[in-house]
């Protein structure tokens, strides 16, 4: 999975080059890109070591996992044979490098009970999660920014109290509570079960896809809206108190123009950053909602593998999610730097 990441990032570099106004990538962005890219690779190496340590070293070994309490009844010879079979009689370093070697060549391992390759499982699960995360991010951003603008329009007024209370509630009601409530109410009152049947991509059947996605996207959207709302509110209040805003008002610009062009334009930077963080988070953080609504996404793949004690699947899938998370954070940083001209000064 690291390889596609490198390709994606290199692609990004070319794309940015193409759209840069001068036709060339500004030097500050080029230097930053190189440094940030190396940093991302280093982080991924660390991530792979951590995932390996958590899932290989801590739980004893795969034999205990596969045989449970019966592992104690195995003869030493059987134990040794199984250890050789799973490759855990080799040194940890050799195990780590053989795993990373396979991952780099696109081999993420095989699920023992279904004989499916983790790569093919991931290929079918990842689009589900990405669609869900995109929808939730769009819904959450719209609601969060609107609510944040409402709150910031009169700080400490009635609107602000209402907006902040909604934001706090959205932050505090756990996704699993909201998801469970929606599933039960919708199923009972409308006799409608959102999680019947297989996942349908939007191009296969748009109506079925919408039916499957609308409630989970709503639940996650609310979770995204809360931090976006808080960021929007504080950024709007902060920027709104600056001198240049007073000047813009003094020039006689309309309130709407000041709000959208001058204040929101500047407040956009922290908001974009928060939205990016939330989107990245949803790639793995959607696990509970995927489970409740029976969506076959990447989080559910991890959870299922944990239940089935398929540690190879858990290990590679968690690595894929972390790699995607690092990539999204990288792109968020890039956007941040791209839209904020002040960063050039640094």
């Amino acid at each position: 999975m690291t390889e596609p990441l490198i390709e994606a990032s290199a692609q990004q570099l070319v794309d940015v080059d193409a759209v840069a106004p001068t036709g060339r990538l500004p030097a500050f962005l080029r230097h930053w890109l190189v440094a940030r890219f190396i940093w991302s690779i280093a982080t991924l190496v660390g991530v792979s070591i951590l995932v390996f340590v958590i899932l290989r070293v801590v739980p004893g070994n795969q034999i205990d996992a596969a045989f449970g309490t019966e592992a104690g009844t195995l003869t030493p010879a059987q134990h040794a044979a199984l250890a050789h079979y799973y490759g855990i009689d080799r040194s940890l370093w050799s195990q780590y490098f053989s795993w990373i070697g396979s991952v780099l060549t696109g081999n993420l391992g095989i699920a023992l009970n279904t004989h499916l390759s983790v790569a093919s499982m991931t290929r079918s699960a990842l689009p589900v999660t990405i669609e869900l995360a995109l929808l939730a991010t769009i819904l959450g951003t719209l609601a969060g920014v609107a609510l944040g603008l409402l709150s910031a329009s009169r700080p400490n007024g009635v609107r602000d109290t209402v907006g902040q209370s909604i934001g706090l509630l959205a932050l505090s009601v756990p996704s699993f509570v909201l998801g469970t409530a929606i599933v039960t109410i919708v199923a009972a009152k409308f006799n409608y079960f959102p999680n019947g049947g297989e996942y349908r991509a939007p191009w296969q059947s748009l109506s079925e896809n919408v039916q499957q996605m609308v409630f989970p996207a709503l639940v996650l959207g609310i979770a995204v809206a809360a931090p976006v709302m808080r960021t929007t509110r504080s950024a709007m209040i902060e920027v709104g108190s600056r001198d240049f805003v007073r000047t813009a008002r003094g020039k006689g610009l309309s309130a709407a123009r000041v709000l959208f062009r001058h204040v929101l334009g500047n407040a956009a930077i922290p908001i974009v950053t928060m939205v990016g963080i939330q989107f990245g988070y949803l790639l793995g953080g959607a696990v509970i909602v995927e489970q409740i609504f029976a969506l076959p996404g990447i989080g559910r793949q991890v959870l299922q593998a944990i239940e089935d004690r398929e540690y190879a699947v858990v290990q590679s899938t968690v690595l894929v999610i972390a790699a995607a998370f690092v990539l999204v954070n990288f792109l968020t940083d890039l956007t941040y730097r791209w839209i904020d001209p002040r960063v050039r000064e640094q």
Partner: protein
Amino acid sequence: MSAIATPATVAAAPRRRGWFGRLLQSPSGRIGLVLTALVALAALAAVAHLLPHDPVEQHPLDRLLGPSSRYWLGTDQFGRDIFSRCIEGAKSSLQVALVAVGLAGAVGTVAGIAAGFFGGVLDGIVMRIADVLFAFPAILLALAIVSALGSGWFNTAIAIAIVYVPIFARVARGPVLALRDADFIRAGRVLGFSSPRLLFRHILPNVAAPVIVQVTLSLSWAILTESSLSFLGLGTQPPEASLGLMVSDARALAADYWWTLAAPAVAITLAVVGLNLLGDGLRDALDPTRARD
């Protein structure tokens, strides 16, 4: 310390006079304090076995009864008292959260202060480890660690602690970096103060405010994470009461017996809202520069 105050210390240090008063002045601080005290009292009642019913005792004849004077919040599918189970569940959530945040706060704060104060290689190592831990969605990392360690309340606490260590490391490192070259620390060095003395007497008090705020907010996240993991069957195990497990059980029941879902849902939300409000209130009360938001 206050004799040679720099702008950085003024910003970070809690003024001794009146931070609690400022907390009580803000509505969020007041409500947060009351809710948090309520949850803490309820947890203490559970510890002292002062509940109307035994939270795990089954009453087969009283299954799925609605709220009444005998069972204040009704009973579940085994006839267990939901009110007592909610209190007991809040206690176990709080227990996990306190242990997790205590561990993460201690380890993370020490690591962050050391990294910021000594800098160099140590800073590099600590912050790279933090970067790696930040490269996972929090719930996924907790999930992976719990799956490796096995379920149970202590392992859940360890998993949550590992996830939150880097947050505390960053929170503590920031003010230390700002203070390291402050005039009063330089003066201390010139006077020949030892590193421990500079650290504990002069730097630690300035780190306390952001760390206290972070502790409060982390407790609310820890309660959310604990109940989420229990909901997924990876945290507290039955028959022990847990708010996440109660919601999970209610999935099959809530359509006909709403109280089985409503009670644990409200309990979790109250605890999380209370800690969030208290954290917001403390942040404003402890930090004079943010007091006028």
